[in-house]
């Protein structure tokens, strides 16, 4: 289903779009990854991923395997718990960039119109360890192979984590260990039709939520005259009852990757190098 739900700024009545009855509900045969907090004796064997923490004398030994990709760490802790949360997809194979770029099929937004799209975004799974009330990241793993891109040009652009998404008018069914659902609200403040096929979101505004079936994130894009857009990640779950993920955000120190194409105002990224 590739229909945008569109409404004008003056008339807030949503345009009727066909939405399947089971929209947003997971398929019965779809396996789901369990996010949440677990005791150390909880072992995970999911698809090709296995995670375990075993006690060896006074030390715990963390072991993770995903195919040939392994990680082993010794953890010195008396008691604590392990948290598995979906995190911003910007840490593998290395923390190269702060920006996530989502490419999607081109959508035409009417003048002074607002559209809400549901897109997908890649997921990385953060393994956190918590003891004495202090939480620290232990490992990050992902079923998705990362891909990077350049928004803008080499001289004045930003490296982005690239993801290709379909366009949906309702939350699509996705495997919660591979992809999450991004609710993107696009507001066209111009008097022209605007074509949009990408959104660049800065990590600072990304707030990931999860429940037993979905991982979600939300962002708002305000298109302004001159073909630019301000994109801001917003803290808003897909629906009530979702848990807010732990964040891994730390501003990158590498200046080489921060000469933004537009400019970053707090968590809002100004896309001035094209919307398509």
């Amino acid at each position, binding site marked *: 289903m590739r229909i945008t739900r569109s409404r004008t700024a003056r008339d807030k009545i949503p345009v009727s779009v066909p939405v399947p009855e089971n929209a947003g509900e997971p398929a019965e045969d779809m396996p789901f990854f369990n996010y949440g907090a677990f005791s150390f004796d909880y072992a995970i064997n999911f698809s090709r991923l296995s995670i375990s923490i075993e006690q060896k004398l006074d030390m715990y030994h963390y072991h993770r395997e995903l195919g040939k990709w392994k990680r082993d760490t010794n953890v010195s802790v008396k008691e604590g718990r392990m948290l598995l949360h979906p995190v911003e997809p910007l840490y593998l194979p290395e923390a190269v960039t702060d920006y996530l770029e989502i490419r999607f099929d081109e959508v035409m937004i009417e003048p002074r119109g607002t559209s809400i799209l549901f897109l997908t975004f890649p997921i990385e799974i953060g393994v956190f360890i918590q003891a004495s009330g202090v939480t620290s990241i232990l490992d990050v793993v992902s079923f998705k192979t990362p891909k*990077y891109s350049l928004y803008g040009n080499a*001289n004045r652009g930003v490296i982005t984590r690239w993801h290709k998404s379909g366009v949906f008018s309702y939350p699509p069914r996705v495997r919660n260990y591979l992809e999450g659902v991004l609710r993107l609200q696009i507001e066209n403040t111009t008097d022209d039709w605007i074509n949009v096929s990408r959104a660049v979101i800065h990590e600072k505004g990304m707030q990931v939520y999860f429940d037993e079936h979905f991982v979600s994130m939300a962002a708002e894009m305000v298109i302004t005259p001159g073909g630019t857009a301000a994109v801001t990640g917003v803290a808003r779950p897909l629906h009530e009852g979702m848990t807010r993920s732990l964040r891994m955000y730390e501003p990158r120190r590498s200046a080489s990757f921060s*000469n933004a194409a537009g400019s970053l105002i707090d968590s809002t990224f100004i896309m001035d190098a094209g919307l398509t």
Partner: protein
Amino acid sequence: MADLNLSVIYDSIFGGLSGSDDGGTGFFDTILINGITYGDIVGAGIILIGTLIVAKVFSGIVNRMFTGKIEKNNIIFVQKLVRWVIYFIGFLVMSPLLHIDFSGLMVAGGIVAVAVGFASQNTLSNFVAGLLIMFERPVSISDNIKINGTQGYVEDIGLMSTTLRTYEGIYVRVPNETMFTSDITNYVAHVARRFQYLVSIRYSDDAAKAIEVIRGVIDKHPYALKSPSPDVYVDELGAHGVNLVVRIWSPSGYWWDARKDLLWKIFKALRAADIDIPFEQLVIWEGKDTINAADQGPEDEFAYPETATPPKMNRDDAAKQVDRG
């Protein structure tokens, strides 16, 4: 005259405290030591406090001005420099109250200043170049640069010199004057850069298939950027094979990782697709032992009669023929 004017100024400011000229008899006029009165001490103290406050204020201004523009260590250095200059000025202002006479030092100081000026010409030029580099910022710490044939990572940018660590781990100090006047190649100033391979395949291989295979390998690599998209094309029909050029954009900080990783993966993928790298071949024709009917055909080589066989041999066949010969 100058002394007179200075004393007039001081009298106007601190007259109430010292009152030395009008022969006051208050507490502040009481001489403590060597003609220095309590008033002079208090005046000197006020100047001292004022100097410290001014130095602190200017130090903060310098910090705000340069934060984010130059390295932290250099900001601290400039702050210290500004502070000491203000201290020195404060001391000069304070000196008449403490009855310190610098007139004897003027001539000697002038001579010393000239001598020091000549001696420190290069030093000063390095210092000025250092300040200019801080504003222009052609390089930053940890940048991968090349200057005067030296390649390496910038370790530190000082006011007098810039230090590099070469790829071999060697320490190289470059005076800032050299930094400022030389061509600098900064490999990571831009966020992305392009690198390329030259991949040869045999004439018997399908170049279109080879391009598809290479693109497939590149698409799977994280550091081969999606945009600008990689470019793979037949560049040359070489002496020994078909030369393909593979151009890939990568994040500047990761291009070397991608370059190291991709070439072998491309080779393995090509091998898996039964596309191989050609060996260098040299075909030698000796006497009449030539290909076949080509030399018996009509003179017009572009119009072979239907009965004649055009020379279709490829280089592999020709090489075999030479071996048999």
